[in-house]
């Protein structure tokens, strides 16, 4: 179990570094901005599903979170 958290933590570190690299190298490109947002959503999901144990919860809560994130990224991508 502790190992699962360590793997999640390492994945979060890799995603954070990737986001920082992308934003520094390709700043200003709309596609990169959306990619940065998607990478952040991946981190969000890792925290919610693994650290908060949402993956053990009833599907209702998982679906609700996924709907929230889809609407959030969708609306921002359209407006931006």
């Amino acid at each position, binding site marked *: 179990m502790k190992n699962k*958290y*360590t793997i999640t933590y390492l994945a979060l570190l890799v995603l954070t570094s990737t986001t920082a690299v992308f934003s520094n190298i390709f*700043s200003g490109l709309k596609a990169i*901005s959306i990619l*940065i*947002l998607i990478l952040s959503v991946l981190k969000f999901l890792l*925290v*919610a599903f693994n650290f*908060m144990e949402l993956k053990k919860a009833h599907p209702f809560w998982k679906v609700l979170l996924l709907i*929230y994130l889809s609407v959030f990224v969708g609306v921002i991508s359209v407006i931006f």
Partner: protein
Amino acid sequence: MKETNYKNIYYPPGGILMWILIFLELLTFGIAIVVLVASSKENTEAFKTSANHLNTTYGAINTLFLLTSGFFMATSLQLFKSNNLKKSKLYLNLTILGGILFLLLKSVEYHEKITLGYVLGYDTFFNFYWLLTAFHVIHVLVGLVILVSLTSSIKKGKTLLEDFEASAAFWHMCDLIWLLLFPVLYLLF
């Protein structure tokens, strides 16, 4: 320690009331972020210039502080479930340390912005910056109070698993909100 059946719709990890609160918070911050992005369309260049005044390194380090703190929180809860109270308390203290480091760095960042005159009312971008980040800081402060109270209840041996899970869920919620705020405020424009 006996675990709850999380598969029941009424018992998500952390409790149903905590998850209702989490969704309300996410909705509030989500709407504010969408309004921020929509406002940026009115004056793209001004938003870009203002966003460039933010220090992305501070933002990235603060992300690491909160993610590390979240990792310690999850580990602490796991150790509590396996009745390893001593180690659980150690990890809980490390979680608190992560939160304090986040607040310290945020204070440095706020001090810099105030010194340079980028205060509330400077422009639309900084209005959003101050309101969103300060509202998040209040959540972190409340989370820290909850964690300190949890540490003291562990010392007294009075902690219930449900209380620990709810406290952990609140702390992780601070991570989740920051994970939405950081890319939009610091990187998107």
